[in-house]
C-alpha cells in the first residue's frame, strides 16, 4: 500500500515535470512474476545484486503472471497500467505483443552483448520468438511418476506413452487443464511421427484422433491449472504420474526428497521471459531498461540456474552453469537441455499454437466438461 502510494506519487511527479530527461529513473517499480521458487530464483540472481548496485531502488513484486494477459487487458482498458516489467511464457508474450499491450523492443539496443561479444540477437538466437519478448529461461513441461506404486509390480515408465498405458501403469494421472502438450502427446502415442504432429492437428480427423486418445484416460486424470498442483497431487499420492514443469519436479525430487522420478521422454521445450508493457512513462521505462540490461546479461542468466533447474536462454550462459546454491548438486544434469534428457523433444510450435489456440481451447474445454 505504502509502496503503491509512493509509486503513484512518483508517476504523478513525472507527469508534472515534462522537463525530466531520460536520465531520470523511477526508483519504485513493480515487477510481475510467478511467485514460489521461480520468483525466489529471480530475486536471488537478479534483484538482490541489482539493488546492491542501486540501493535507492524499491522493487514491488506482484505474483500475477498466471493471469497476466487478463490483467493487462483490464489495465489497458482502464488506461491505468501499474506494472513495469512482466514475466510471462512465450505464448502469452506473443499474444500480448499481437494485441499491442507489450512494447516492441530492439533487442540489440537495450540488451547487453554476450560475454564473448556476440550481439544479443545472436546470443539469444531463435528464442526471440516475438519482437516484444526478452527470453530468460528454457524450461520444459515433462512428466514425473511415483516410484512406490505397488500395482505396477516393478515396471518403470520408460516413455511418455506410459501415460496412456493404464494396463501396465494403473492409477490416476494428472495433466494440465488445457490442450497444449496433451494433444501432442496423445498423437505421438497414437503413432503419429514427431514431425507430423502439427500437420495432423490441422485436420479434423487429427483432432478427433487426439481427443479419442485422451478419452482413454479422461476418467483417470486429475486436471491441474497450476504446475504446483500437479506436484501436490503426486506427492499426496492422489496421482501416480503426470506432467509438470521440470523445475517443479526437480524441486520435489531433489530438494524435498519425494519418491518421484523424472520422465524426460518427449518433454516439451518452452520459454519464459520478460515483456515491457506498452506506453510506460519515460522514467519508469528507463529504470526498467537499466534493470533489463543488467539482469539479462550472460552471468546473471547463468546465476539463476543455481537456484532453479531451468536452462539460461543465452547460448553464452551455458558454460557458466554451476552447482545448486544450497544443495551443491551439479545443475547441468537436471537441465532440460542436457543431451541425456533431450533425446526426444517436442519443439513447441508457437506460431501454430497462436493461430489455433482459440479453437482448440474451446474444443478442449467442452470435451473436458462432458
Amino acid at each position, binding site marked *: 500500500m505504502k509502496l503503491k502510494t509512493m509509486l503513484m506519487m512518483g508517476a504523478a511527479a513525472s507527469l508534472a515535470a515534462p522537463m525530466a530527461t531520460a536520465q531520470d529513473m523511477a526508483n519504485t517499480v513493480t515487477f510481475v512474476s510467478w511467485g514460489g521458487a521461480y520468483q525466489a530464483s529471480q530475486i536471488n540472481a537478479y534483484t538482490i545484486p541489482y539493488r546492491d548496485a542501486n540501493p535507492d531502488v524499491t522493487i514491488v513484486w506482484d505474483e500475477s503472471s498466471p493471469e497476466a494477459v*487478463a490483467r493487462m487487458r483490464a489495465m489497458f482498458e482502464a488506461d491505468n497500467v501499474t506494472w513495469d516489467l512482466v514475466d510471462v511464457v512465450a505464448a502469452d508474450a506473443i499474444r500480448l505483443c499481437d494485441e*499491442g499491450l507489450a512494447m*516492441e523492443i530492439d533487442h540489440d539496443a537495450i540488451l547487453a552483448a554476450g560475454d564473448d561479444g556476440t550481439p544479443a540477437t545472436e546470443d539469444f538466437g531463435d528464442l526471440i520468438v516475438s519482437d516484444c519478448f526478452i527470453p530468460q529461461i528454457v524450461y520444459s513441461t515433462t512428466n514425473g511418476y511415483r516410484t512406490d506404486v505397488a500395482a505396477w509390480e516393478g515396471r518403470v515408465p520408460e516413455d511418455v506413452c506410459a501415460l496412456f498405458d493404464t494396463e501396465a501403469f494403473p492409477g490416476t494421472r494428472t495433466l494440465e487443464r488445457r490442450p497444449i502438450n496433451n494433444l501432442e502427446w496423445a498423437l505421438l502415442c497414437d503413432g503419429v511421427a514427431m514431425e507430423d504432429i502439427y500437420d495432423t492437428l490441422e485436420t479434423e480427423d487429427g483432432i478427433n484422433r487426439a481427443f479419442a486418445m485422451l478419452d482413454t484416460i479422461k476418467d483417470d486424470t486429475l*486436471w491441474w491449472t497450476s504446475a504446483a498442483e500437479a506436484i501436490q497431487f503426486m506427492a*499426496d499420492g492422489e496421482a501416480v504420474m503426470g506432467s509438470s514443469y521440470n523445475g517443479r519436479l526437480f524441486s520435489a525430487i531433489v530438494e524435498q526428497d519425494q519418491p518421484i522420478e523424472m520422465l524426460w521422454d518427449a518433454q516439451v521445450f518452452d520459454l519464459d521471459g520478460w515483456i515491457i508493457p506498452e506506453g510506460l512513462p519515460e522514467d519508469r521505462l528507463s529504470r526498467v531498461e537499466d534493470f533489463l540490461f543488467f539482469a539479462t546479461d550472460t552471468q546473471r542468466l547463468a546465476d539463476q540456474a543455481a537456484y532453479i533447474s531451468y536452462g539460461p536462454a543465452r547460448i553464452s550462459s551455458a558454460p557458466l552453469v554451476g552447482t545448486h546454491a544450497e544443495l551443491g548438486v551439479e545443475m547441468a544434469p537436471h537441465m532440460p537441455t542436457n543431451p541425456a534428457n533431450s533425446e526426444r523433444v517436442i519443439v513447441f510450435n508457437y506460431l501454430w499454437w497462436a*493461430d489455433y489456440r*482459440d*479453437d482448440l481451447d474451446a474444443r478442449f474445454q467442452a*470435451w473436458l*466438461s462432458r
Partner: protein
Amino acid sequence: MSDATAGNLSQAAAEARREDAAQTGPMLAADGRPLKRSLNRALRAQKLRALALIAPLLIFLLVTFVAPILDMLFRSVENQIVSETLPRTVIALDGWDATDLPDDATYAALAHDFKEAAERRIHTRLGSRLNYEATGLSSIFRRSGRGIDGVGEPYADQFAALDPAWEEPATWIALMADPDWISEQADWLEAAQDTPEPAFRLVPGIADVLPETTDAYRSFARTIQTTGRTPESPLTKEPWATVYLALYRDLSGATGADIGAYSGPGATRLQTAADAVAGFETIPLRDAFAEVADGWVQMPVWTTIQTFSDPYTAGYFLAAVDLQLTPQGIEQVEDNQRIYLTLFKRTMVLSLTIMGLCVILGYPIAYLLSNLPMRTSNMLLILVLLPFWTSLLVRTSAWKVLLQQQGVINDLLVWIGLVGDDARLTMINNQTGTVVAMTHILLPFMILPLYSVMKTIPPSYVRAAKSLGATNWTAFWRVYFPQSVPGIGAGCILVFILSIGYYITPEIVGGRTGIFISNRIAFHISDSLNWGLAAALGSILLALVLVLYWLYDKIVGIDNVKLG
C-alpha cells in the same frame, strides 16, 4: 417519527378531514396554518429525514456494488468491437445478400480496415472475438495481420515503376495535406516538440477527386501519428501499400472519382497515372486475399462479420445456452462444443442434491433443538453455530484432509479393513467431494430457519391430535409437519441460492466433474478472456438468483432474515 405518532397524526388528519366536510373552511393548526398542510409538511420532513439517513449508504452501494453489476450486464451485450475495428467493411456488407462472395469494393474496404487494425494491433482481438462465433476466424485474422501488405504491394510497385515520385512522402503530402496543416506542422517542428505533432488534415475538395485514396491516406496518416512509442509523421513516411490499392481503384474508375476536376499540385502526374492504370497487371482482390488466408474466399468469415456487425449482440447470451446466431437464424452449436446447458443442469442438480441432504440432515436437528428445554437446546445450538461461524476455507481444508486418498477417512477404512490399501476410495476431486463439503457448509443455513419456525409451533396441537387417537406418526405427519413447511421452504431457498453461486469449494474439491457454473465464469474472466460470455453466464445466474430471492421475500420476507 414513531408508529404511534404517525398513527395519531393520521387519525388527527382523518378527523380534520371530517370536520372539513362538516364545517366549511380549513381547520387551523396552532401557528395559524391550515392543519392539513402542516401535517403534510411534517410528513414530508419525516420522509426527507429518513432518506437523508439512508442516502449515504445507498449512494455508496450504488457506486461500489450496483454499478459494477450493471456494468457487467452491459458487457454481455456489448459488441462495438466489430464496427470499430472494421468500420468500412461493416458498411460495405450492409446490403450484401450473402448468396455469393462480396464484391471488389467490399474486399477493398476490408483491405483498408485490416491494414489500419493491424497497425494499431487490434486485429487479433477481433479475431478472438469472432472466433467465439465461428471457429477458425482467429487464425484467419492472425495470418491476415502478417500478410495484408501483400494485397496492396503489386499496386505500390507498379505506381513506383511508372513514376518513382509516387514513393516519395512529399508527393503525397502535396496531393493530400491541407496547406494550413503543413504550416502548422512546420511551426511545430521548429518549436520544442513537447506536444504531439498536429493531427493530419486533408486539403478541402480532394475527397471528391480521389474518394477512396483520400480515406485510405487519412487513415494512414492519423494511424502512424498516434501509434507506437515513437509516432511517425506522414511527412517522412511512404504510404501503406493499401493506399496505392485505393489510388488504383480511384484512377481506374471503380469509385466514381473525378480526376478531370483536379488542378492542384501534381495534376499532370495524376493524369499520367490515370492513363496508365488500364495497363497495370492486376488480379481480382478476392484472389489476392485468398493468398493472404484462404478463409477470405469462403462464406463463413463474411457471414459472421455481417451477422455480428451490430454494436449490440445477443451472441453471448445465445452462447451461454449452447446456441449460436447464424445467417440462417438461431441454431444449436455443434455437439462437441455444447457445454453450458450441461453445466447449468449440473449446477442445478448438485444444488438440489445438497439442498435435499440439508433438509434430511437439518430437520431432525431442528426438531430436536426446538423440543428440548431451552438450556439444553442453547448448548446444542452452539454445535450448529460454530461451524456456521468458522471460516469457509477452514471447513474446505478440513474436508480435503478428511477425504483425500491418503486422508483420515481412507486411513480409517484401511485400518478397520473395510477397503484394501490399494483400493482406497476416491471421494475428492469429483462430485462426491463437492456434495459432501457443501452439504456440511450449508447445513447451518437450513437448521437455523427451520429451528426458528419450529420454535413457534405450539406442542399442544400434537398433544391434541394424540389425545384424539392419532398415532405418533399421524400426529407428526398430519399436524406437526405441515406447520414446519414454511421453515423448510425458507431453508431450501436459502441453501439453494447460496449453493448455485458457489465457487471456492467446488474449485478446491470438485475436480473435473464437480465444478459449478461459477467456476466456468471465473475461467472465462481470467483464463480464456471471453469476458462477454462470462458476463452473459453471470447475468443468467444472477437472474436465477433474483427470482429465488423474490420467492424468498414472498415466503419469508427479507426483513425476517435472522443471523444466529
